């Protein structure tokens, strides 16, 4: 496979305070186990969780379109399956947001801090 660089750009992408992250440091860090751990932890949560809530939402929309009999089933009083299903969409949205926040605080933020620290360390060693 041929690998080609994009031609030198007249305006490089913005890079924060400039000193913070060089391309060489980023390439080295990209295969560093500390970054791999962060990436793995992030992907392990966000992709399955996104697939799950999108499937759950799609099921709701499909049921609203094609499962009218089920959706119209009265559970008690004026409460039917459609209403409960809708309220559950609210509940799952709040729930996933809270779950992700706890997960990120415990697993992602420390791993990201490790990566930033390692980059800082490498820079100091180099100078």
């Amino acid at each position, binding site marked *: 496979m041929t690998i080609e*660089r*994009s031609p030198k750009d007249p*305006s490089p992408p913005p890079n924060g305070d400039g000193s913070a992250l060089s391309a060489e440091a980023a390439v080295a860090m990209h295969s560093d186990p500390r970054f791999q751990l962060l990436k793995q932890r992030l992907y392990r949560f966000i992709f399955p969780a996104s697939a799950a809530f999108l499937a759950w939402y799609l099921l709701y929309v499909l049921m609203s379109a094609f499962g009218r009999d089920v959706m119209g089933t009265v559970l008690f009083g004026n409460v039917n399956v459609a209403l409960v299903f809708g309220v559950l969409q609210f509940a799952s949205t709040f729930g996933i947001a809270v779950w992700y926040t706890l997960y990120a605080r415990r697993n992602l933020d420390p791993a990201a801090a490790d990566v930033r620290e390692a980059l800082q360390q490498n820079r100091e060693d180099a100078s």
Partner: protein
Amino acid sequence: MIELAQEATTNESSRLVTVVLFSLMVAATLGITVWAGRQTKSATDFHSGGRSFSPLQNGLAIGSDYMSAASFLGIAGMIALFGYDGFLYSIGFLVAWLVALLLVAELLRNSGRYTMGDVLSFRMQQRPVRTAASVSTLVVSIFYLLAQMVGAGALIALLLGIQEGQTFLGMDAATAKIVGIVVVGLLMTVYVTFGGMKGTTWVQIVKAVILMSGAALLTVLTLSLYGFNLGALMGDAAQASGQSGFLEPGLRYGVEVEGDAIQTMWNKLDLISLGLALVLGTAGLPHILIRFYTVPDSQSARKSVNWGIGLIGTFYLMTLVLGFGAAALVGHEAIRAQDAAGNTAAPQLAQTVGETIGGEMAGAVLLAIIASAAFAAILSTVAGLVIASSSSLAHDFYNSVIRRGKATGSEEVKVAKIAALAVGVVAIVLAIFAQGLNVAFLVALAFAIAASANLPTILLSLFWKRFNTRGALAGIYGGLISAVGLVFFSPVVSGSETALISGADFAWFPLPNPALVSVPISILCAVVGTLTSKEQDFEKFALLQVRALSGAGAEKASEH
């Protein structure tokens, strides 16, 4: 005769209170704008409010950006007239925030600077990709803006209670609509031009508080009439609506047409297409994305989305009560008589509830409060759209494309202000010309374009190593052109009773909502474009990913 006279006095006193509240709000927000303008010095101040807002502040501003008049009055009205389907709409709007939370907000905050184009062009050739990002930002924002402003003109006339044939301060209904459009247009332009992102954000924070309190007050009062028994309220609403299946899906979307199985199938596919646009569109709306740049770091971006989800979720649950309340207490006929789309259901409910609880004056005051909350909702959303457009024009198009990245911060701010002025003028003129047209579909179209052109390319940029310039361009333009093109050839534009162009029929695409087809087209274009180009830059991909995931090298809050 006596009744008529009484009604006139109610209208008069309510109008007076409404005008006083409108004026107070405008004065307060202009004061904020002047104050913020004095503090806005650098480009980061102008585009991103110095990145120094707290998560709660940004969460309120996110809510304000998102809870437009279309979602406040529109969804309440839809629930009031069509029952369950209005609720279905709000669910798509809410669940969409999980896409923003899990896949976009933090990574975007870490890797970009001022605009959506920053992230899309990070790994790519700057000029073509930034041009595409800017085009897409402008199209989405102008469509959304146009829908809001045309709605605003009509709403202000309605909120002030000016009926056809009546006059108020010497204005008839048609003049009041134009005045409404011009006032909203001028205010949003002033907020952005003079206050920048800092001013706009503070205006949005104030408005979120007004909107939430107004809606909460009305919700509690409505529920109190039913002894806080939501079930009883819903039963009454279903009965008063006079329609069977009011508490089930199907009265507005995915309508089953008797004896026409094909049309029924199209209607149901259209519901799914709409659902897809709602859930995937939010995280691709430029005015929402740039909000993540206004906080100091990615954790704050995460927290602000959480605040946003909490506020927006609560708000839509309250809208459910308001919509059913209006159906039960105001009634189908009375709502339709005021506005066929049901946009005045919430204000009408306010008047009815106020009158039931505290007599006529209370009705007038409550109506004025809700009218002001709706006015606030309009203003804060349009201001957010103007700043997104002007930032993209100045940062992506002027600086990166025309000046090849050599413009200074103060030049960029100057151009952004001129751009805001230009967008404001264009929006006012377009809205005045479009006001006779049925443009409500433009909000759904803006979501469909965001879902097709923006979100797939943002995600592929962040996660797909092989992705490149040709892929990004194909994805953005493919999504944009297919979404707009399909709507152009749909029953929305021609060939139906409610079409934009009446008396013509060139519709061959059966779905009013294009996302079901245009999202796959965009992804296909992005993949094919990528694979047919040899360009591949692992270095920049590593740079983007390390920066996006860890926050190393991310833009810092500016010092003050």
